[in-house]
């Protein structure tokens, strides 16, 4: 059942969208969706790591011996994570401060390792790039939409900037009288909100 090249890309956007269909990489999903800015920033960082590590692993797949492949994957992923970390320190420092510990933790976020093991190690470079890109964009979209719900309900406004693209500033979306439902931006809200989104995804998928 060979998939076409387009399908390799689009499967990450809906059919296998992380973190809903593939329940991987949950920690940043919960921790960095307090605001859209953090969520999308995390998505971008992960997309970069994922595409780069997929390229390198696909290119080296004939060289890496199967017995030590996991160790090799971890080192490759960690290298790109360090690159992202240093680049964010240089260009988007305020976002780097907000995301804090979760940038180095991309190493143990299971998505890059999972894709390396399940896909890049068995497929060519072009397909691996598309797979990484699709998964990365899917992850960015999920984090962005979760953050959109949480920030809007939890604070009543949307303020921030998408790195390198644009900034936005909507205050008092629900009017002056709205009392922010701060449960949504705290830890419990994160779990409940993600659970409900998963439920909605399941309902849509079952049709």
């Amino acid at each position: 059942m060979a998939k076409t090249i387009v399908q390799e890309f689009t499967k990450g956007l809906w059919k296998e969208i992380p973190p809903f269909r593939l329940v991987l990489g949950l920690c940043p999903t919960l921790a960095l969706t307090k605001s859209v800015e953090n969520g999308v920033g995390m998505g971008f960082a992960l997309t970069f790591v994922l595409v780069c590590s997929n390229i390198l692993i696909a290119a080296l797949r004939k060289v890496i011996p199967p017995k030590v492949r996991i160790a090799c994957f971890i080192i490759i992923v960690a290298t790109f994570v360090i690159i992202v970390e240093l680049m964010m320190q240089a260009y988007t420092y305020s976002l780097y401060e907000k995301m804090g510990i979760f940038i180095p933790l991309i190493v143990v976020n299971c998505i890059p390792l999972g894709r390396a093991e399940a896909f890049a190690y068995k497929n060519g470079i072009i397909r691996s790039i598309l797979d990484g890109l699709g998964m990365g964009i899917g992850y960015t979209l999920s984090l962005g939409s979760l953050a959109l719900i949480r920030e809007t309900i939890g604070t009543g406004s949307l303020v921030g900037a998408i790195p390198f693209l644009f900034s936005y500033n909507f205050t008092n979306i629900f009017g002056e009288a709205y009392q922010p439902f701060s449960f949504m931006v705290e830890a419990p809200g994160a779990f409940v909100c993600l659970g409900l989104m998963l439920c909605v995804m399941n309902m849509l998928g079952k049709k």
Partner: protein
Amino acid sequence: MRDLLLFTISCILLNNILLIQYLGNCPFLGTSKRMETATGMAMAVVFVLVLAGVMTWLTRKYILVPFNLVYLQTIVFILVIAALVQFVEMFLRKSIPVLYSGLGIYLPLITTNCAVLGVCLINVNEDYDFLQMLVSSFAYPVGFGLALILFAGVRERILLARVPKPLQDTAIGLITAGLLSLTFFAFKGMV
């Protein structure tokens, strides 16, 4: 002494690594379906994290800082943890087979548990001294274990309940975790 005690409590309850700081959620959802696996995972994490905390802290202080290699911290830490886990596994299999049969299958999973790397990074980011580092490397995983075992208990009960179809499995698990997290929130303001 009093400070350290308060620090321990805050690591276990107030800043619970799973439910308040959101680290280590993949094994949290993955191994909480049965009480036995949850207990095994919790014990393995405590065991490895104390060792990993000490090792990474020493590595940073005596290797990375003197040689100006702090920018390699992430890659060095993950390698130290991976090597340590491998070593612990071999050591246990040879010397303490009883413990190995209990913890064995959880050990390889720990390398990619973000709670382990996360606590090691918290230790160095917050500039803890040796004693504080030791306490935090012990107290955080205890908090992890506490939350995991509580959650496994709740989840075993959910198995008996009739859950609506779209909510089954992970979705209801996450909502339960949210409620559990709410109870841990009540500890805020205690210290």
